[in-house]
């Protein structure tokens, strides 16, 4: 009996101690400032004299990104940054599907484990609003980063935030990839940067190869992906995203583009939406594909056929979505000076050139982009590099400024229309209704 009591007492005591330990805040956490305090403190720090190089050398700076650093050390900008600055750069890779939500949680909980967030377009203003990231203007005034040379769309996106909260890590765009061998075999002229949407549709039909039983063996074009659905809708005349109120704007353009895709699916020119995860273009099962420019770096010399790129075809207008991420400094970071040093390197000529070579994405700084480091050396079959510069010129920040739940929901609606489960008009109405329910919550 006595033993039981002792045992019960021990169990309870250990449980309570465990609970208190688990629930209690550490001294460091207690000292973590509230949002306003953090902003005040960081402003004070930012106003202080620039820290000597030696003071930040050896400091560990953690950066959150969604893509793995390049395995080739020469193309790993973080490894090169370590060599150049003497700062220990630790890269935390968060899967892309959870990236935005993870960062939001970190900001919400005032997490200090990450010094630099690479923030997406739809998050930067929210993070600035809640004091999760700091303005970098004081740092920038003493820096050589060419902020006045950002491409116009990037500069516009930062307007209205009340300061420079983020610096764009690159400027990616969307382009048309095509299989030259298939074009040659079908006797179709290669796409050009002034291709019309009608040219694209006609070529897609000619390039489609069918089996004897009528099923498609090679598609004229792959299905638009989560990015390029919006390029098609924008090119058909819809605004997609209204920066004045943050709303999604779909209308006749979306109905028209979804209807066109439905027709192409019906004819077997384009595959129906399915659970397949294979890249039909890379697998040689689709002659054309609309995708992001970053795939140039992925494809490199890996594809077993000749391929090139062109701008997306012009429909009612020339349209594609720009993509970037912004280097920002966590307001709760203990290493803000070192974090800025890292950003300074990554935004400098060397850092931007390495990033471009590794990813195929041009720098958002015009003078650096003009040097052409983004022309991926491994992609030896590409001749039409102008497709990238032309696409950048026509690019806008569109759907990427909307919550991903809204855009993913819209794509599910479009897919339902392609499968004949609802009409294109019903799909667009339903997507718009959901966006209205969601945005501005």
């Amino acid at each position, binding site marked *: 009996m006595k033993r039981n009591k002792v045992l019960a007492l021990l169990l309870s005591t250990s449980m309570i101690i465990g609970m208190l330990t688990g629930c209690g805040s550490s001294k460091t956490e207690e000292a973590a400032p509230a949002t306003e305090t953090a902003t005040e403190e960081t402003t004070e720090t930012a106003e202080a004299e620039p820290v000597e190089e030696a003071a930040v050398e050896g400091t560990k700076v953690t950066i959150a990104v969604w893509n793995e650093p390049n395995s080739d050390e020469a193309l790993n900008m973080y490894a090169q940054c370590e060599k150049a600055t003497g700062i220990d750069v630790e890269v935390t890779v968060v899967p892309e599907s959870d990236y935005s939500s993870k960062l939001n949680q970190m900001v919400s909980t005032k997490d200090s484990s990450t010094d630099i967030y690479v923030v997406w377009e739809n998050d930067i203003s929210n993070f600035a609003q*809640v004091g999760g990231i700091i303005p970098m203007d004081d740092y920038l005034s003493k820096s050589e980063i060419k902020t006045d040379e950002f491409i116009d769309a990037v500069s516009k996106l930062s307007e209205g935030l009340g300061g420079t909260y983020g610096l764009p890590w690159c400027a990616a765009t969307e382009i048309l990839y095509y299989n030259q061998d298939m074009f040659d075999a079908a006797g179709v002229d290669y796409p050009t940067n002034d291709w019309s949407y009608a040219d694209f549709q006609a070529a897609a039909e000619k390039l489609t190869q069918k089996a004897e039983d009528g099923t498609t063996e090679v598609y004229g074009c792959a299905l638009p992906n989560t990015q390029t659905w919006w390029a098609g809708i924008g090119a058909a005349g819809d605004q997609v995203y209204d920066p004045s109120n943050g709303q999604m704007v779909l209308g006749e353009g979306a109905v028209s583009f979804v209807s066109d895709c439905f027709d192409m699916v019906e004819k077997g020119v384009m595959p129906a939406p399915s659970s*397949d995860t*294979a890249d039909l273009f890379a697998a040689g099962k689709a002659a054309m594909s609309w995708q992001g420019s970053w795939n140039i770096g992925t494809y490199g010399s890996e594809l077993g056929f000749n391929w090139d790129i062109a701008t997306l075809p012009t429909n009612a207008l020339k349209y594609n979505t720009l993509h970037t991420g912004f280097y920002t400094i966590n307001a709760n970071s203990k290493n803000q000076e070192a974090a800025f040093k890292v950003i300074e390197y990554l935004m400098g000529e060397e850092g931007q050139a390495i990033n471009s070579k590794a990813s195929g994405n041009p720098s958002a700084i015009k003078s650096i982009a003009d040097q052409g480091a983004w022309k991926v050396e491994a992609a030896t079959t590409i001749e039409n590099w102008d497709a990238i510069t032309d696409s950048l010129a026509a690019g806008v920040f569109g759907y990427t400024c909307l*919550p991903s739940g809204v855009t*993913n929901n819209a794509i599910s609606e479009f897919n339902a229309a392609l499968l004949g489960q609802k009409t294109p008009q019903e799909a667009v109405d339903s997507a718009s209704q959901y966006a209205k329910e969601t945005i501005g919550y």
Partner: protein
Amino acid sequence: MNEVNEQTSVRKKQLRNNLTAYAFCAPWMIGFVFFTLFPIGFMFAVSLTNRKLNGISDFIGFANYRNLLQSETFWNSFQVTIFFTIIMMIVTTIWAVIMAMLLNYKQKLNGIFQFCYFLPSVIPTVALAYAFRTIFGKEAGLLNAIITSISGKNANVNWLYDSHTVYFAVFFITLFTYNTGQMMLTFRSGLNDVPRELYEACDIDGASAFRKFRNVTLPMISPIVLFNSVMGCISALNGSFALLYPLTGESGDPNGMTQVLSLLIYKEAFSNMKVGYACALSVVLFLIACMFGIGIFAVSKRMVYYEN
């Protein structure tokens, strides 16, 4: 005097015993309060705010509940959840009973059969779902390739995106989840406990195999059927996310046909950052789980046979 002292001593002993018992229960109680009761209360509190994932929050009363009641997406998800829960519970329970009965036949290599049947159940649900996503692919799916090679015709069934086949595919996959495997084992142990003499009596009376199952086996294992139904129901409500998210995405493709509430909660909280609204949806899911639990126990009073 002695009697009074004795009574006091007994009371003290009883009190000590009670305190000892409470002390033994305390670790669980503390865990329950902090890790179950408090989160439920907190969830309800957050559901009354417009909290976003980045921490912005204002009290808005029952606005989230009003909004969800007016949302077509919610009502679609509500219907899908009820449908999915009932069918998944029935399908997995029946399958587990069949498997358990097959394994209960005395035959050689029974252990190997049991191992093979149970093996898929120990694979994490997410990995299982991704594997089946590949199997059920349209262009490059293994199942279509097998059908093509057998039939000699090009099979292009869009298993997971065609409204006619998606439920078949999804419910088929549920047969290989951990929950079904676990059910099979509990049914098997239950079947072993059914007294042999009851079957012998049936044999003497010339009862068919079906009548033996209906009139002997089923009543005798009915407490286990109840237990597994409750577990299957809770698993379908809460665990379906891990299965459906990799299979059909957060929007529950095609056309929202697989968008159960747990998927919608995830989408609202982590893709749209609407934590307050997602908490309101979670409260609804919690109520649905309670309703199912109460409903199953109510039905079970009439249908479950307890020997003692």
